[in-house]
């Protein structure tokens, strides 16, 4: 399942679009040092962290998309940087656990 397909099927808010890649796995977390060393390539990264560093880390780990959970909306700095770097930035309503289950079900990961 590609990112656009997930966004449509799951009804996620699209804050920013990027390259429409396949989602191959998932990773959940807010501590950036954990994310950067452990999140697999081409993953959907689910977090509640909302600041500009999220975009920098997403670029370095080559994730397929960022999913901000629990209704978190990106601040201006994060949105701008995500746009500059063409990173998918999605918004989801429920908590990280519930949204992980949804991503797993929709994407088959």
């Amino acid at each position, binding site marked *: 399942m590609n990112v656009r397909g997930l966004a449509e099927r799951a009804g996620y808010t699209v804050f920013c679009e990027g390259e429409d890649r396949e989602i191959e796995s998932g990773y959940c977390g807010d501590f*950036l040092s*954990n994310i*950067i*060393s452990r999140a697999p390539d081409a993953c959907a990264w689910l977090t509640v962290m909302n600041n500009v*560093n999220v975009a*920098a880390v997403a*670029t*370095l*780990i080559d994730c397929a998309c960022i999913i901000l959970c629990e209704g978190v909306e990106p601040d201006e*700095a994060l949105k701008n940087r995500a746009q500059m770097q063409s990173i998918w930035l999605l918004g989801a309503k429920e908590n990280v656990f519930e949204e992980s289950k949804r991503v797993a079900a929709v994407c088959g990961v």
Partner: protein
Amino acid sequence: MDCIRLEYDVDGENFASAGNASESVKRTLKQMGVSPASVRRVAIAMYEGEINMVIHAHGGKAVAEVYPDRIEIRLQDTGPGIADIDLAMKAGYSTATENIRSLGFGAGMGLPNMKKYSDEMKIESTVGVGTTVFLRIDF
């Protein structure tokens, strides 16, 4: 041996640009055809170093020299220095403020990650003068 030399000024306490140097190095290595696994190790180690300079040292200078078989990175700052390097190297130990933690940093994994993902790491630090971290990552 010829190498490609990349130099960056890391802007202190400016999180909007933190990670720019690591991203630039990553892009360069990718274009050179370095393996994705090696690119990832370099990106992790360098980003952690860059963030350390932003958080703790009001920025500094990052110099990367890319050779056909390795990269050598020197991260130099004129920050407060590290009083006890062994303690700073301990996973989970952090002196980051609450404000920094709220940004997703301060897990105490910066230096351990840098060591884990590099083939050689050297820290020279003098309290009140600054810190220089040398990293070598083989491709």
